[in-house]
């Protein structure tokens, strides 16, 4: 490694030092070109024979010539053993990729980063306390970036054309070099501030990725774009640029004149920045789609729950609510479908650079994943019962419940009778207990059947009652919960509202019976 450059490696010819890549070629080369020395050829062949033996030999049979085939078989049969067979190997030639990397990187650093940083620092200095008065502004500019003496420049260094009255000399404000008007650009002060200011890195336009390219190039205004601009811009058109500056100070405030080289560096930096910040359009589409999918997932869980409950004839959830939710899910599904379709054909119309390879594959995969999701989760969802069906379900459930109640009551009776037989002494007490209990049951049944939610409205007159207040509260909550598709909450709140209503009713009845 120490004399790295001197050291040659490979299958070298010992006479002419050429690298022959393979031993076979080396021997052939020797036979052809150095045939005059058969001794060497012989030793060479011997050398390879030995090396070959050494490589292919296995323990204790160095004399024996082992063919490649058997050695291969041997290797297959016992891999460990094969490895043990090797002598400890010396470290071969190493190559430092870091050094190679730094070499490549240094060039870039010098060419781009260091140079660009210098420009940014200068731009920052230029912008700092920039005088609005054109003359002092010029002094300010020159104090930061010394201008090249324009007498020493005969031709425009970029386009190599000579300067004359119509093609005047201009100084780049960032490197001080002299260029012709066509080889300079204008950088608006506002844009310059954005470039320098680290906090203003991301602006709204970064969100619409399509315009990125055009936006960056739009920051640099081609100096010779229009005659009017040319005539009015500070140090161009007119012979006496200072006078023109005085004449049009507002103009001079808006731009810095840069040479194309500086402009290129700055633009490159902006593009890098932009690339780091802006997400590719496909990401944005995908994120949007993901959010739809998440939302749909959440809703479909709720929907399935509601649907199942409704099909059982329960009244926990509202049929209309479920229908709204279904519509909502359908809309989400539509959106997902649309957006995934858009992803799949993203860039297809771009004739010059259509998506291909992994990009295309990714796009198609996203689309197929979305369709699979739609098929599995959203399109397969059970249909809701119609109004009539729902009524039937409810009826069936009510019957089942009645049967159950009947059954339980019978069980209770039997239990009671059994107990009655067992405990003759306590019989009376038990019966009276039971009578009370069953009477309670009956009363509740009547009351709740007679009073639905709507029947509470006429009592609203005494709105000072806390219960009334709370009922109004609950109604507002229910509306909110429903808007938020929180149907579990709707159910709880509705239950509570019913509780309040029955409590209120009972209270009123109690009062009226008292009086």
């Amino acid at each position: 490694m120490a004399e790295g450059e001197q050291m040659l490696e490979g299958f070298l010819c010992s006479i002419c030092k050429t690298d022959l890549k393979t031993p076979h070629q080396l021997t052939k080369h020797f036979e052809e070109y150095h045939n005059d020395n058969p001794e060497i050829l012989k030793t060479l062949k011997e050398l390879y024979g030995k090396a070959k033996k050494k490589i292919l030999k296995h323990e204790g049979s160095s004399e024996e010539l082992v063919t490649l085939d058997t050695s291969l078989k041997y290797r297959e049969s016992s891999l460990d053993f094969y490895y043990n067979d090797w002598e400890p190997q010396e470290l071969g030639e190493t190559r430092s990729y870091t050094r190679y990397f730094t070499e490549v990187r240094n060039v870039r650093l010098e060419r781009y980063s260091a140079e660009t940083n210098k420009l940014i620092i200068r731009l920052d200095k230029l912008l700092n306390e920039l005088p609005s008065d054109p003359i002092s502004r010029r002094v300010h500019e020159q104090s930061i970036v010394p201008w090249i003496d324009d007498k020493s420049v005969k031709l425009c260094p970029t386009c190599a054309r000579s300067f004359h009255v119509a093609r005047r000399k201009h100084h780049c404000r960032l490197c001080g070099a002299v260029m012709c008007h066509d080889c300079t650009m204008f950088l608006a002060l506002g844009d310059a501030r954005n470039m320098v200011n680290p906090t203003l890195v991301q602006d709204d336009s970064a969100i619409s990725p399509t315009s990125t390219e055009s936006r960056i190039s739009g920051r640099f205004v081609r100096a010779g774009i229009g005659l009017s601009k040319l005539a009015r811009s500070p140090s161009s058109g007119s012979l006496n640029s200072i006078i023109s500056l005085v004449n049009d100070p507002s103009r001079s405030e808006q731009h810095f004149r840069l040479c194309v080289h500086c402009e290129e560096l700055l633009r490159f930096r902006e593009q890098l920045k932009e690339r780091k910040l802006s997400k590719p359009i496909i990401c944005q589409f995908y994120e949007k789609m993901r959010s739809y999918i998440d939302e749909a997932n959440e809703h479909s869980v709720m929907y399935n729950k509601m649907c199942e409950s409704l099909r059982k004839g329960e009244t926990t959830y509202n049929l209309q609510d479920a229908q709204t939710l279904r519509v909502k899910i359908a809309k989400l599904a539509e959106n997902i479908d649309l957006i995934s379709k858009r992803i799949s054909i993203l860039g297809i119309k771009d004739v010059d650079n259509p998506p291909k390879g992994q990009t295309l594959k990714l796009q198609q995969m996203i689309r197929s994943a979305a369709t699979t999701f739609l098929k599995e989760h959203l399109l397969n969802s059970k249909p809701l019962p119609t109004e009539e069906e729902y009524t039937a379900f409810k009826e069936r459930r009510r019957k089942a419940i009645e049967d159950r109640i009947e059954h339980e009551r019978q069980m209770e009776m039997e239990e009671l009778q059994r107990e009655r037989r067992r405990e003759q002494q306590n019989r009376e007490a038990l019966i009276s207990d039971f009578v009370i209990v069953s009477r309670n049951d009956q009363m509740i049944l009547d009351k709740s059947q007679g009073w639905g939610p709507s029947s509470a409205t006429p009592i609203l007159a005494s709105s000072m009652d806390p219960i009334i207040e709370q009922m109004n509260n609950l109604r507002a909550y229910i509306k909110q919960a429903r808007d938020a598709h929180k149907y579990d909450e709707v159910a709880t709140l509705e239950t509570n509202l019913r509780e309040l209503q029955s409590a209120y009713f009972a209270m009123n009845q109690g009062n009226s019976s008292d009086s």
Partner: protein
Amino acid sequence: MVVIMVTMASRSTAQRPNGSTQGKICQFKLVLLGESAVGKSSLVLRFVKGQFHEYQESTIGAAFLTQTVCLDDTTVKFEIWDTAGQERYHSLAPMYYRGAQAAIVVYDITNQDTFVRATTWVKELQRQASPNIVIALAGNKSDLGNKRVVEFDEAQTYADENGLLFMETSAKTAMNVNDIFLAIAKKLPKNEQTGSAGTSGQGRRLVEVEGQKTTTSNCCK
């Protein structure tokens, strides 16, 4: 009147038709009680939305909020009833603590009266709420330590004597807010969803509600 209370208790604790028992989801009814302006709503707002308002409006009636907490393999959904502390709403409170599996009784550590009120709430709960209700005592406004009137030890001793969970909380700094809810969630029984339906039903097993919705203690859904 008694009849109605019993009905409501079993109704509100009744098992919700959860469709299927996907994973393990527990729903718990939790009620907040305490003197007005001790920070009940702030506590809930902090727990549910992570927000804090310096000037929280006083609650009317009872506010309803839900929050889901994941605990090991179970998902605990709190249905929180944040009651108004003002005396005129006192009559509403039983409606919300009856059938509740958990209650947080809140007092303000800078106000002795609120602590006294909290102890009466605890007594009321022990008397009238479901017997296995989990009660937590929260000494709120712990960020105002320099104005403290109720000593930590005093409250802790009281809580220990009555078997309450106890923490000093601060809705403003979020201190111990999630912790107290989490402690409650841990203490609640997870195996049966309706912690207290059977007991609060006082021996009756069936209640018919509005002719359609029936709830039983050990449900058939």
